[in-house]
């Protein structure tokens, strides 16, 4: 089994009267076990130059395999740009087939979250695909990785 850790540090010396420092390390394990996640997309990279909504993580065509749904998959996404004015909206398709916006990644921003990866049909109707929508036509590059079982 593999051992993969994800560590976060949130720090500020001036957002409040006293400094804030939150640090946490998670060992990424399979659902309900202590066995480490052992599959990954690897770090991937894609550049966008339009404001169209694009499937970043397409469960119908995910590396010709199916993620184990409702397990312990994790997703990392980073906007590698430097613009603090333009963002990329990240959303997830909900069970009704509509896109639910999660949040906006500005240049340099990253996100890391658990992913249920529910695949419902090849028609995409209710799949939990991850979609992204740039806020401008300026070139923007995302990097992302899925770690799963």
């Amino acid at each position, binding site marked *: 089994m593999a*051992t993969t850790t994800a560590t*976060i540090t949130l720090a500020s010396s001036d957002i409040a009267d006293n400094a804030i420092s939150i640090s946490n390390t998670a060992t990424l394990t399979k659902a309900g076990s202590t066995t480490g996640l052992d599959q990954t997309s690897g770090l991937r990279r894609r550049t966008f130059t339009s404001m169209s909504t694009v499937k970043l993580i397409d469960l119908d065509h995910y590396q010709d395999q199916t993620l184990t749904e409702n397990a312990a*998959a994790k997703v990392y996404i980073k906007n590698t740009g430097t613009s603090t004015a333009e963002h990329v909206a990240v959303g997830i398709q909900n069970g009704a087939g509509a896109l639910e916006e999660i949040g906006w990644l500005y240049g340099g921003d*990253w996100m890391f*979250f658990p992913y249920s990866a529910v695949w419902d049909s090849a028609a995409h109707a209710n799949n939990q695909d991850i979609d992204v929508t740039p806020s401008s036509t300026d070139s923007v590059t995302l990097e992302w990785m899925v770690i799963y079982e």
Partner: protein
Amino acid sequence: MATTTATITLASTDLLSDSLSLSSTTTLYDAGTTTGLTQYDSGRVEIPGDNNIYILLDSTAAALDKGNRVYVANKNTDEGHYVDMLIDEAVLGRLYAGDWMFIPWSQADAAANLEVRAPNEANTVEYAIFHEGRTFTGA
């Protein structure tokens, strides 16, 4: 303005044939600016294990389409325990014991609450939201 940073490090020596060591740091700004976020809320709560969806953080008018960032950690230790994390009842994923998440949360509309559901056992969750402001409820 304040300066708040968020750093992630992903590391493994055996997930791939070569070592994985990824690190990224971002500074938390107000949406579309280089002004640092100046407000935060944090807490530690126990989510009942009754399979009901509860609002962990409420989407408020003052925070719609803003640069909010959210950190959530599941502080349980039994590897079988988890909470579902949702936005407006759309499931993101399962946050197992010991796991954490960090996301931008744009609060696209008033219903885009950050929600949590513990299907089986009570789970203790810690959270922090860094934001530009929120709408207060009158007394």
